């Protein structure tokens, strides 16, 4: 069977800088993979290429065997891949449920007009990421960073992905919020979601992943079980700063 996500010989150049240098990896069904590396290693660039926000110079990106490398971002999302952003980007003048409503919308103007919003599903998603009933009508400027990340998760989940890319989901969160989001990811793993997770918080990341991939200067430098990757000499010198 084809893998949910498979990347082969991906290359992305910005002028003289090779931001993604011949990277290949795949993720198996229901697996959760951590993508680690120092700042500027090119983790987010890989995410952007998977989503079609940036176009690769060469290489292929396959989703369940289908080459999605030439599709628009919305078309890729409809095929089941979705991401969150390092800096959450909510719709500022909309409540929590309205933000989720946008994620739930079908990409058809006719259906947007003729079919009303699915209130039950909006609320269900909001509650599933840990919002309380009181939070539903709050606006992004009233939310903490943890709540904003939860909202971003909910809106991403609303698009109905089978592969989720999470970018620095723990940045700026309190310990309580980290364990809350971690628990949410664990729950979704049990439900069969496939994940690719970027995080600098290795302590929070470790229990959430089946294996890890380390990159530096755009190249893959190690891949395997978390413990093996983290003790790899290349990873230790580039990322952890120890010989």
């Amino acid at each position, binding site marked *: 069977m084809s893998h949910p996500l498979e990347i082969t010989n991906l290359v992305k150049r910005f002028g003289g800088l090779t931001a993604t240098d011949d990277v290949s990896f795949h993720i198996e069904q229901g697996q959760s993979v951590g993508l680690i590396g120092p700042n500027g290693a090119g983790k987010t660039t890989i995410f952007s290429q998977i*989503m079609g926000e940036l176009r690769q110079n060469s290489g292929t990106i396959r989703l369940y065997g289908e080459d999605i490398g030439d599709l628009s971002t919305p078309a890729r999302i409809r095929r089941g891949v*979705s991401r969150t952003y390092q800096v959450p980007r909510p719709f500022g003048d909309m409540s929590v449920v309205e933000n989720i409503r946008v994620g739930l919308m079908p*990409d058809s103007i006719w259906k947007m007009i003729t079919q009303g919003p699915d209130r039950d599903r909006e609320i269900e998603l909001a509650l599933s990421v840990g919002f309380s009933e009181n939070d539903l009508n709050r606006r992004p400027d009233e939310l903490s960073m943890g709540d904003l990340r939860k909202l971003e998760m909910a809106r991403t989940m609303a*698009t109905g992905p089978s592969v989720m890319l999470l970018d620095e989901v723990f940045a700026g969160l309190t310990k309580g919020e980290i364990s809350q989001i971690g628990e949410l990811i664990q729950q979704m793993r049990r439900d069969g979601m496939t994940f690719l997770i970027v995080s600098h918080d290795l302590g929070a990341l470790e229990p959430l992943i089946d294996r890890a991939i380390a990159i530096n200067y755009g190249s893959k430098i190690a891949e395997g079980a978390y413990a093996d990757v983290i003790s790899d000499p290349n990873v230790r010198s580039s990322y952890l700063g120890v010989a």
Partner: protein
Amino acid sequence: MGLRWYHFAMWAGFIALMYAMPELVSKGTLRTFIFANFLAVFAISWDVLSGRTGYISFGHPFLIGIGAYTTAILTKRFDVAIEISIPIAVVVTMIASTLFILPALRIRGSYFALVTLAFMELIYQLVQVIRPDLTGGTRGMSGIQTLTRGAVNGYYMSLSLMLAVAISMWLLMRTRVGTALSAIGMSEDSVLGSGLSTTRLKLFAFLTGAFVAGLGGAFYVHYLGSIAPRALFDINFVFTIIVAALIGGSSTIIGPMVGAFFLTYLLEYLRPYLPGAERYFIYGGIALLLYMYQPKGIYHIVMQAWERFKPGKSA
């Protein structure tokens, strides 16, 4: 859509009041109301195209003008019946609006506004140079067939058009498509990231706004019976439309309608005291004060008050 009984009650009350207006005010005031009705149509059109998506059009008379010129030329030069020329004018305006989508794919913010301004300048020059025998060149056209005679009939015609536009756009924008268009104005990238084609949504906004602009332009020219390019493709006209939408409260449909009446009435009210261009200082000043106090416009000031007594709030 979440319609409540008080929505129906408010619309019914407003409609009844507006249709009773010829019994209540003088013919001179009625003519002011006619202008307010048309301004409301243009402001609503601007609001649909720009208010939500944040793609600010400075070239709205480009669309209005295409609707107005198309029907004027068809009826006057080719003896086409008005019932046929107005729908054609609307379709032509919608086709012309797709030109807006080309810059909108690549640029945002003030750059987009400048490109639309260029569109308006372009058509202003074009109607003067290209086939002046058709367009009337610099002098414009007069003796165009009118739909109505007299202030009262003109008022009913403009009012019916304005209400039809306002209610249909209000209903349309209450659906999820209104939410999606607002979302584009807040974060276009997040709309893309929600799996929605923003190009298609923007095109929908432009086509719908152009539909209203073309309709308004066509009816306006058949109300006036003449067309003057210098007054139509004028930056002051653009500002009047935009200020009406913003003072009233953009991306609300009701707001631009309220703003159009407020602005028209204000300008008329000031006329005896300040006959010249000084009036525009006053209106600029009031617009400035409103933005400082409530940037979201009159609509939001009223809504804040309404929230305090909203029926069924405790239920």
